[in-house]
């Protein structure tokens, strides 16, 4: 029996043009709109002008150390799987100016805050695992004693349009990590792409008043639409990879496992996994000056625990060996992150598997070290 819905959880249906108008409206309201767009070899998250920039009919094949774009025959706009890098690029850019300092006449210096913030951003196509990643980083950058005001502001202003996955990649394990595939919270609007012989539409549900306002003019969804949308995500629950987050906590208790040496023999210590990981948050700082030395700036840059500089204390690096650097990364991600933030640092997006040039698989390594039987 159909019940009358409450106004603030309006579920609507947009067709492709409707989605185009939706994006156009966002741009009109002053948002920089980021969404999936096909670059030469991948679907990346970038500025988009409209729905035409979305990667219609592109899918991807992903496995360890392997990503290929594939044509889809259904023309889906959101059928590309996951982009190479998540939304931390936008929310926590690779380079951020922390301050500029200028020498004063007669000694001392003045500090100027960084440039005024950019316009707010809107993200189109945020997956469930990515929403989880954003929440994880938000906690790192604001949950405890010191917050990063830049991150907090960008996130507070960002308008998030989530998209439900209709299928899983071979590298996905969000179901294990409890972060997906269903989009449950943290969005302004949630889209589910429905494609069949007769139509290509998007069921759009508002998650916030801001989202509801954007959907005000849209056509309400029928109960059948809602049912179909709920069904879409079921297909994505079938996943190849598994990781037991509870068991993985034992990683920290196994610092001398022989597997560390085995993985170190394969690991390039290139840092790709940390760079593509949507929750990895480590940064370093760079001090720069002009030639005269009268003006100085300090920049914050993404960093990786795979570099030797990362653990440098005077005299030398603490983690000189590949084994200890890999161990630091995976142990922090799956084990000590829980000690720090009461949840795991892994959201199961599988990017570290795809973009590792030699295809090292976090789920396999965790299982091998914590003795979970799978290998």
């Amino acid at each position, binding site marked *: 029996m159909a019940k009358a819905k409450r106004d603030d959880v309006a579920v609507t249906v947009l067709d492709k043009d409707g989605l185009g108008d939706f994006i156009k409206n966002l741009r009109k309201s002053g948002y920089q709109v980021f969404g999936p767009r096909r*670059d*030469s*070899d*991948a679907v*990346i998250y*970038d500025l988009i002008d409209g729905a035409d920039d979305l990667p219609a009919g592109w899918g991807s094949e992903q496995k360890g*150390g*392997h*990503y*290929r*774009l594939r044509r889809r025959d259904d023309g889906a706009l959101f059928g590309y799987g996951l982009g*190479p*890098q998540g939304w931390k*690029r936008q929310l926590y850019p*690779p*380079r951020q100016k922390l301050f500029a300092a200028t020498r004063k006449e007669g000694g001392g210096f003045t500090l100027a805050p960084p440039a005024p913030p950019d316009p707010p951003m809107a993200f189109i196509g945020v997956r469930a695992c990515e929403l989880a990643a954003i929440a994880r980083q938000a906690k790192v950058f604001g949950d405890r004693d010191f917050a990063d005001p830049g991150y907090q502001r960008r996130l507070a202003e960002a308008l998030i349009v989530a998209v439900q996955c209709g299928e899983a990649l071979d590298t996905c394990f969000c179901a294990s990590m409890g972060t997906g595939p269903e989009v449950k919270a943290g969005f302004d609007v949630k889209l589910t792409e429905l494609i069949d012989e007769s139509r290509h539409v998007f069921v759009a549900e508002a998650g916030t008043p801001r989202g509801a306002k954007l959907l005000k003019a849209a056509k309400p969804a029928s109960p059948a639409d809602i049912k179909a949308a709920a069904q879409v995500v079921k297909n994505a629950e079938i996943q190849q990879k598994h990781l037991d987050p509870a068991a993985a906590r034992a990683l920290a208790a196994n610092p001398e496992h022989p597997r560390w040496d085995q993985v170190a*023999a*394969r*690991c*390039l*210590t*290139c*840092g*790709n996994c940390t*760079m*593509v990981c949507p929750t990895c948050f480590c940064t370093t700082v*760079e*001090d*720069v*000056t*002009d*030639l*005269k*030395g009268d003006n100085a700036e300090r920049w914050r*840059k*993404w960093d*990786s625990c*795979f*570099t*030797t*500089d990362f653990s440098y204390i005077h005299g030398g690096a603490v983690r*000189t060996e*590949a084994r200890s650097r890999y161990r630091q990364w995976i142990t922090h991600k799956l084990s000590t992150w829980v000690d720090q933030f009461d949840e795991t640092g892994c959201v199961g997006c599988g990017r570290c598997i*795809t*973009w590792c*040039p*030699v*295809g090292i698989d976090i789920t396999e390594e965790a299982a091998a070290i914590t003795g979970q039987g799978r290998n």
Partner: protein
Amino acid sequence: MSERKRPKLAVWKFSSCDGCQLTLLDCEDELLALTEEVRISYFLEATRKVEKGPYDVSLVEGSITTPHDIKAIREVRKQSKLLITIGACATAGGIQALRNFKNVKDFIRTVYAHPEYIDTLTTSTAISDHVPVDFELRGCPVNKYQMLEVLNAALNGRKPNIPRHSQCIECKESGTVCRMVAAGTACLGPVTQAGCGTLCPGKDRGCYGCFGPMETPNTAALAGQLLALGQTGRDVHRLFRTYNANADAFRKESDSHG
């Protein structure tokens, strides 16, 4: 402008293509400002004016390939407070170090007229193989921003921001899609030091390693992956044997794919 004491800069050349010292002249926007901060005391490519040492900073381009070079670099070292090598020749022997892997006499058996006019060594080696070096700037050629950064840091007494990590990190920072993963392209990025500005992957080609080995290069693991991607042993051998062929890690890896 008052003639306050500016540090003296010298630029020296050994066996090379001149590209790295040209990089200094390619700093079009910064060159004049730079000369206000340093006094160019020896830089033959740019000026016939020559000032005597000692020099505060010496930039050294090129590799050691003749007996005369050995004497000359020692003299340069003696005259220089800070000796910075610029480029793959000076830090690893350069492309001309390919002779190190061959019997040079084989090169010569070919027709040429008067070998007795020429004085050369059988090897091309890095400056640091002969004298202590304070800082090595990588690249074939060096990146001009890195060159300015090193000079700037030397002038301002700070540590230069020159990362020693992989090129991959730079690719990811710039948002460049990984060629190796997304297109199966052979790429030395994971074992190569960052700093070029993501040139080759940005041009849809694999990194060919002109910045030399990164801090802890696992070349064996990368070579394994390259073979898995369909490269032959000879390809892998050649890939590691170019502008930094004589850098330890690359030399060893190329040797094991003879």
